[in-house]
């Protein structure tokens, strides 16, 4: 009997955790998918249907409507909420941020990974230290400076702030990839007479393309989702609102129906999620590369 007792505890635990594992998986699926399903569901419902039966997780064919999307996308002159304009602003700021950040981060990452220059150790530490400082600490002086320079309520000013916020993590991600490119390739290029800049442009950049894309996507996501600085700089000027800011400002009021704003949330979420699924592999590897080194 005693010999049987020991394996039975292992068996019991084995079975228990087998069941628990399934429960956890189901739980995780529910908590991650349900909110997004709910978002999608409410966005195609008329507001009366929501108020009548708030608990319903289905939609009947007769209730189904796309007028919420019409409402939210139409310009304000036509009585809509003008989200097309917001989308355009967001796209401009985000793409501008991606371009500028990569332009600054690629040489930076290359230098940090390859070149022994004066202070090359301190530089990467300095860049990472940027994250120690709260955005609110930056918000105060930037708010004042931008107000003074007339850059508040300008998309360019916002993009500059985003660049500063994303450059350090971009350098970190790119650096992790660049160190995996063998140095001998570069030496071969140098022997063939490539200058340093040519080497970067013609040898390193093509090889680092996957990492460049992952980094670019990550920057895009940060810029697209950002809220605090958009709120601080642009709140006064509805023409310049980004989608995030527009949605937040409108959801404070009561005059716009919630289902219309839900359509706005879907519009805000879709670009990021589509991009993310298109490149999920790239992105998760880019983010965590280096995490599995012990």
């Amino acid at each position, binding site marked *: 009997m005693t010999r049987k007792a020991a394996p039975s505890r292992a068996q019991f635990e084995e079975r228990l955790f087998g069941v628990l594992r399934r429960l956890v998986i189901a739980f995780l699926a529910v908590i991650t998918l349900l909110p997004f399903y*709910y978002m999608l569901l409410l966005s195609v419902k008329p507001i009366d249907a929501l108020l009548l039966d708030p608990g319903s997780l289905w939609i009947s064919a007769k209730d189904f409507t796309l007028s919420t999307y019409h409402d939210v996308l139409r310009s304000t002159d036509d009585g809509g909420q003008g989200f097309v304009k917001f989308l355009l602003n967001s796209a401009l700021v985000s793409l501008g941020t991606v371009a500028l950040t990569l332009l600054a981060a690629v040489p930076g990452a290359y230098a940090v990974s390859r070149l022994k220059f004066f202070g090359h150790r301190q530089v990467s530490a300095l860049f990472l230290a940027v994250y120690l*400082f709260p955005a609110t600490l930056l918000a105060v002086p930037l708010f004042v400076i931008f107000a003074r320079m007339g850059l508040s309520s300008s998309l360019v000013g916002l993009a500059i702030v985003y660049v500063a916020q994303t450059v350090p993590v971009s350098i970190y991600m790119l650096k992790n990839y660049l160190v995996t490119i063998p140095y001998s390739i570069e030496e071969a290029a140098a022997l063939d007479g490539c200058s340093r800049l040519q080497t970067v442009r013609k040898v390193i950049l093509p090889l680092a393309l996957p990492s460049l894309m992952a980094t670019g996507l990550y920057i895009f996501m940060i810029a697209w989702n950002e809220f605090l600085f958009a709120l601080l700089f642009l709140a006064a000027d509805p023409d310049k609102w980004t989608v995030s800011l527009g949605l937040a400002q409108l959801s404070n009021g009561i005059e716009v129906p919630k289902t219309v704003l839900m359509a706005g949330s879907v519009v805000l979420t879709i670009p990021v999620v589509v991009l993310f699924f298109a490149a999920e592999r790239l992105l998760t590897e880019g983010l965590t590369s280096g995490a599995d080194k012990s």
Partner: protein
Amino acid sequence: MTTAPAGAPQRRATGPRSTAGPASRTSRPMTASRRANRAGLAFVSPTFVVVLVVVVLPILWTVLLAFQKAKLVDIQGMGLFGHWSLDNFAQVFDSAGFWSSLTTTLLYTAGGTLGSVALGLVAALALRKPFRGRGLLRAAMLLPYVAPVVAVAFVWEVALSPQYGVVNDWGRRLFGWDHPIAFLSTREYSVHLLGVHVDVPLALLTVIAFECWRYFPFAFLFILARLQAVPHTLEEAAKVDGATPTQRFRHILLPQLMPVIALLCVLRFIMTFNKFDDVYLLTGGGAGTDVAAVRVYDFLTARYDVGAAAAQALVLAASLMLLLGLYFKFFGNKVQEES
């Protein structure tokens, strides 16, 4: 090995171009290390300038502003060094909400950090072995993290609403709640459980739950990556020796995961401590959720009191540094191992 063929055509392509190069170059040769030094500095400078102008200088100015009387209207005509005073700090420390706000911030940060890392760990363990639809679920689980905060906060707000929210409706149907619960605007919710009366800070707990939900994917990603690098042989050996799953986790997996867990805790702690958007969007800082970051924003935009806002932000940053300093003093070696 695989990169060699990729490099070869590059070499050929750059060949003819580079022959034209040396003629225009300076005739004075530099040593390789000096060239590397110069190129390195040149390559880093754009980043350095941006970070200096938009991060370092503003922070220094915050420090100056914190010690000055500065309202937004005065600042237009003010020089860099105005009227020195410690009024801002006096105001920050004396004001009614300061200490309670700091406590709230700490509770929020600790809850959000531990919750998201724990949930991430559980998720990583559950998704460790392959099953049908694992890839799909793995991707879906990152949704809360990648989706825009404004959109997900709005979904939570609607779902938790006492008037038209799905949660209260289901609560009424399934658990027989008498009154709808206003999750995001109830400071203290009285719970009667087995004759014991407890006041629960409901809004704060809801905000913490949101934080856990939104950031567990981050922890999940990192822990899963580390988990897949753990050699299987160790666990198999333990299994053969009759170790139960809990024992295998406690004595084999956990020690290997500890460094990454510690690193995650530090990262999440820093980020949650400074978090503004989530709380601002969900509750606006009301109902006992007035975290320090939201207070800074209020000082800045409601009263246009730049000096007080700067002082508050500075106190916030200093407390974070202090906490981190304490942490590294006691547990520093674990994090260093990982990074």
